[in-house]
């Protein structure tokens, strides 16, 4: 078997917040990938119907998060420094 650890990235220099928690990403990473690498596959808020990215092509809409007042696919949203996003809540219709 190969190493069970996720690849280490030392140059993760972008900071962002998701559901209020701070994470880091490297340039060119999408929000969904940066969270996956941080061990966070669930993109809806806790206590909602648990969902995460599924199609990774921007089609299924399962990874949509709230960002700057819009629904955005986390698998197509490139992280920038200071980015803030929130997952779907149980009462979100969108």
């Amino acid at each position, binding site marked *: *078997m*190969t*190493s*069970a*650890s*996720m*690849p280490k*990235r030392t140059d993760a220099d972008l900071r962002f917040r998701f559901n209020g928690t701070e994470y880091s990403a*490297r*340039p*060119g*990473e*999408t929000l969904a*990938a940066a969270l*996956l*690498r941080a*061990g966070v*596959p*669930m*993109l*809806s808020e*806790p206590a909602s*119907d*648990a*969902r*995460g*990215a*599924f*199609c*990774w*092509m*921007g*089609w*299924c*809409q*399962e990874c*949509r998060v709230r960002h700057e007042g*819009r*629904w955005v696919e986390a*698998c*197509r949203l*490139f992280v920038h420094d200071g980015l803030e996003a929130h997952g779907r809540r149980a009462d979100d219709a*969108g």
Partner: protein
Amino acid sequence: MQDSWDIAVLGGGPAGGEAARAAAAYGARIVLIDEQARPGGQVWRAKDTAREDVGDSSETAAGNLHRARLEKSTVTFLSQARLWHIERAEDQWHLHLLVDGCSQRHAARSVILAPGAREFVQPFPGWTTPGVFGLAGVTALMKSQQCPPGRRSVVSGGGPLAIFAASEILRLGGEVAAVVTPNSKAEWLRCWPEFMANPSLTLRGAEMMMRLKRAGVPILWRHLVSRASGDPTLRAVQVTPCHANWTPRGGESAIEADALCVGHGLVPNSEVAVLAGLTPQYDAQQGGWIAASGPLGETELPGLYLCGDGAGLRGAAASQNQGARVGEAAAMALNGQRPGKTSHRTSAAERFGRAMTRLAIPQPGLARLTDADTIVCRCEAIPRRKLDAAIDAGATSLDALKSATRCGMGPCGGKYCLTNAARLIGEKTGKQLADIPPPVPRPPLFPLPVDAVGAGFDYDNLPIPAPAPL
């Protein structure tokens, strides 16, 4: 804003990119439209982020060549643009695109559609659990983000995609707990003639298999993933042996994993072609509903051409060849010419693509995975029992099932449930899939922010007629 082009090509993968390049060689003004930041499509997705510790896969290398050739051509690349509507007016095609949050209109004398394919996944218990991903989707993730889907993954699917994905997970430093495939070894061996005719593709496959072997990854032949469990995120994957027609034999065993990559084949993206006015036809061998097109991509509508997997599954190598022929034909047609009679022989690459596609075509027994409580429509969280009840009550078309249950009316627009819903209708009514057409696609083809089309609107713009003279 409106731009005018000789030819607009939709989709920058092997088919669309080659079509654009071939047409540009004839001096035509070409725009190549793609959802991603750079051309390549899903199969040749460009790296968005670099890792010094891993080199390029052969797919990345092929994509880099594709991108370098386009760079040198006169093709204008319109990136991160999504088509939400297409219509014909005044002898031109009009494309409505969402670019950077705003809607743009582009007009073109001809249009080449190369929208590719999307993934088909048969719903099974637990498939909405975070950590369960589409198999083709994960390959796109790995190509663009250089990131394995989890620490310990189970990879499942028919055909070569599962082998490729597992090999890439290893290359990117992840662990593969098992490859689970409904194919038998014998089915692979029957593709021997196609392997012999395509030594380079075959060698790549052999390299992948060697990587799995070296890492000690077990391959479970004639097995399916029957369940995913974990709350709130994936902890274990249940697998079961299956028959030749992919019917689960029963008897589950569990594999601990935090990622499951599972796919049951591809579905051609035919919505844009149908929205443009073409009639979809059912062809199981080519992946399902496709609009008819000729050998040079020509359709029954003027100036509308189709190529690549979206016009019927054929694989990257064959799509590339076909794209070049279609691009040339479209450019020549604008000058009133026709390409010389090169009677097209099916290429070795095309036969290889079709043989691999056959391995991945889902067999009927797969439907047994979806039990009464399994969610079929992910967006609306509709379990199979609700759909069954509606079908029993007379909703025996997809339009009727949509009206009765909201299946397919969520944000994805039915892209991930209606293929399954059609199979449920077929199973209950005995109707052939060819008699259960997809609903008529309507714009917008994906969720569109209202301000993208309404931006710049002012109440003074309302046409208020002048009051009638007293």
